[in-house]
């Protein structure tokens, strides 16, 4: 069983936990709270059979002039629960909410140049395309692609 649902305040610690397990970019709890209070509709979690959180997406909306766009802050699925299309489902739900609640015109995200599986998901499955290369975007010096 997996369950994909909107994230609640009670999920924030588990989201941070998943993030620390899987990702190199980590954030303080306050940042998760900020997302939850600012854009409560945009974060989603994936639960496993026992109700444990095994993946999440966290996103925000940015305003540049009059144009609003969504931005994926962080997306992670535990390795033990991959290959089931969770990331894709999480993304789809979040993107739909961005458009519905915040009238986002487009959605952007950053991805590590070396992260081929993620690149494949974004471009082949979700039809994002690369709009820019951000040199040394990550702390460890790796480049990022900006995608829309």
């Amino acid at each position, binding site marked *: *069983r*997996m*369950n*994909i*649902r*909107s994230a*609640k*305040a*009670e999920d*924030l*610690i588990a989201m*941070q*936990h998943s993030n*620390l*397990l*899987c*990702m*190199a970019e*980590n*954030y*303080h*709890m*306050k940042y998760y*709270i900020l997302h*939850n*209070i*600012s854009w*409560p*509709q945009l974060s989603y979690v*994936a639960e*496993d*059979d*026992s109700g444990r959180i095994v993946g999440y997406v966290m996103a925000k909306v940015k305003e540049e002039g009059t144009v609003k766009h969504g931005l994926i802050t962080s997306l992670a699925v*535990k*390795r*033990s*629960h*991959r*290959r*089931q*299309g969770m990331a894709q*489902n999480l993304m789809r*739900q979040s993107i*739909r*909410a961005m458009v*519905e*609640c*915040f*009238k986002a015109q487009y959605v952007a995200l950053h991805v590590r140049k*070396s992260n081929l599986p993620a690149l494949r998901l974004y471009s082949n499955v979700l039809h994002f395309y690369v709009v820019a290369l951000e040199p040394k975007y990550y*702390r*460890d010096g790796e480049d990022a692609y900006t995608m829309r």
Partner: protein
Amino acid sequence: MPSSDPLPPKEGALFRKLLKCYELKQYKNGLKLAKQILSNPKYTEHGETLAMKGLTLNGLGRREEAYKYVRLGLRNDLRSHVCWHVYGLLQRSDKKYDEAIKCYRNALKWEKDNLQILKDLSLLQIQMRDLDGYKETRHHLFTLRPSQHASWIGFAMSYHLLRDYEMANSILDTFSQSQTSVEPHDYRHSELLLYQNQILIESDRLQQALEHLIKYEAQIVDKLAVRETMGDLYIKLQQHEKAVLIFESLIRRNPENVLYYEQYLAALQVTESSAVVAVYREFQKQYPRALCPQRLPLNVALGDEFREVTNEYLRRGVRKGIPPLFVNVRTLHQDPSKAAIIEKLALEYFENLTRSGHFSREDADAGLPVEPASALVWTALFLAHHYDYMRDTDRALEYINVAIDHTPTLIDLLITKGRIFKHAGDPVEAYVWLEEAQSMDTADRYINSKCSKYMLRADMVSEAEEICAKFTREGVSAMDNLNEMQCMWFQTECALAYQRMGRLGESLKKCHEVERHFAEIVEDQFDFHTYCMRRMTLRAYVGLLRLEDVLRQHPFYFKAAKCAIEVYIRLYDKPLKSETTIEEIDIENLPPSELKKLRSKQRKAKKKAELESAQAAQAQVKREQHQKSKQQANQETDPDAPQLDELVAEKLERTDDPLEKAIDFLKPLQQLAKERIETHLLAFEVYYRKNKLLLMLQSIQRARAVNPAHPEVHSCVVRFMKSLAATVKQQPLNEHVQQVLDKATKELIGSKTPQQLNDEFIAKHNASILHLYEGARGLYELDHSKRAAAIKLVTSFNLSKIRLEEAIKVYTALRDGDVFGECEAEANAYQQACHERFQYARVFRNVEELEAQLQEKEAAKLRAEEEQQQFNHVDSSSSEPVSNSAATVAAS
């Protein structure tokens, strides 16, 4: 603002500038201005200026001086609301919220309608959950500024939090009627409507909530919330047809939400298992890629139907190769008949895939195409998981080895093999497999984290830290960085490892670090009290407040707190010897050879200690530098952050009052984790040592409320009776206390003596080792002469009916000698017996065997390295001509 001690125009202007400078964080300029005012001989004692000087100093991080000047200023002008307000702000920045509230209240005595003070006060009141005070302040603000939106919202919210839904709703109603024009896509307005709807639902006015939702549907932009809430309301209001339609559309929107299916079924009013399965089959057709409609019928199907749907589900998973296939069906194993069907199916696949490449003989006979070759690997992995779950280590290893032989590069297999060893009680072999997995994909932090966790389970803290360092910030130690990033799982596992190793101070340090994360998260909400009004995301905000109220309910807190309490109890039972006495071993009676060994050991230890203290000193310097730079950074960004004392392991383990420290960790558990029996068992252990009879009794009663049959409750009762008898013997109790205790003991054990109680307990629970263990403890506790009988009671229990964790519990109690006294011989015999039963468990193997194994491994490693070197040698000598020719080609 009129002052009680007004300044003349020139100084007054300077003072206003000073206030401005503080707002703009121009603290240095502020100090100059304060100096200018105070240098006028008539105003050297001017209270408000002195107070502001103090507050400005606080902005510069000079806390002690800040307190000095603010207090001085206040003393010189006790009737000034400015002085009181400033004192409040200073206390607030120091997180002394209760004190700050008092200051603000004093300030309001002299200036009752000051908006800024009222706003500041309301923030502290909500932070401290002084809900009545908050309501009063919000009411006051509302009457002062009825035209502001925030006044209405805060006013309504203060009632909502007090569960006065009626009032909260009518305030919001009046407010929304006053709003004349609503923009077409107004997120804030939409959030406010949903907040009001939430209030209606919480007050149980469901019909009204539904009408409200229907009326405003067009204005609400959060369509998902509308549909979910509406569907739920339709079900609760028995309007099932309408609910069916809504949940159909929600499933279309997100076919992976379990709740939607459950509510859809509730709306359809279908409960019979075959009918439910039929509903899911429809959804399978409609959403062939969705996983929920495939998995959910397994929960409800029975007998042959279960076999059928499970067969379909597993085949699909194995064919596609889904690593979490077993995890997805793990909960079904709670039903033994379902577990048996799953096992049978998987074994069938394995047999037929090996023979013909098909899932079944029927498939083969029908001439169906063969399954992909990987299907065998995934089946083997599934079986390995299955037998691991059943704790059948041999068979689990058998299947995982088949899988690894087939596809040695599949990382998931190595992780599973490690996990099997972990469950079998061999954390060392377990981590070796995780390390192997980790080395095959160093870019994946998940494997990195798992590897580090397994190392911690094997008590290898520095190795675990080293592994983690691959993903932490450079230039900072991984330990510090993980703490900075609130990485609680790592810190808790460290604490547990240190606890096992007896490095108690280090263990406590980690527990306190976790506790500080929780304190920080409580602190984090402060900024959101005002922020949420701007965003109008009031549902999320109330969700946050409710989360923070019970934050320490989180299992991460529980785990760390439990560890801390256990360590503090141990420090109470066996206080650390002061450093000088450690050396004073009775050397006179040692034979010369032993003495020599001891001397060399001491020399080595001394050298090591010197080295370590030098390293520690270095680290300290580094830390201080780091702290300093952090402080400087803080001054720019957040002058309000008070500095916490550094946690020092050596100090923590030499606390004067370990039990009081334990209680600090215990209190939140007693409040928030009442439903966990361990809370009350831990509480008993603490109060037993403090000889607090009433609190012991309270812990026992609470534990019994959770689970009266829990084995440890018995031991608590026995020890309580013993303490009671001993206390009464010493000195008669207060009459009322005696009455309470009499009544309670009568309820607990009736008119039996503790001995009788214990004998009956043993007789009644002779089939449960954990109960017998507690009975044996009681036997020995009540009468030390029954030691042999007590030990025999636990060691003679049939080992084939015992679980690994239980055997470990019994063995460690015997080995450590703190439950039944010294009993080395019995412990060794029991260890040997357990070793035969649990051959993989490390704790039952003897040291010589482990050392021999280690040496064998080292030797093998050395051999491999030598071979590699020889190979390299051959390789490099033979490669010369090739590189020459390559050079020629390149040159030409």
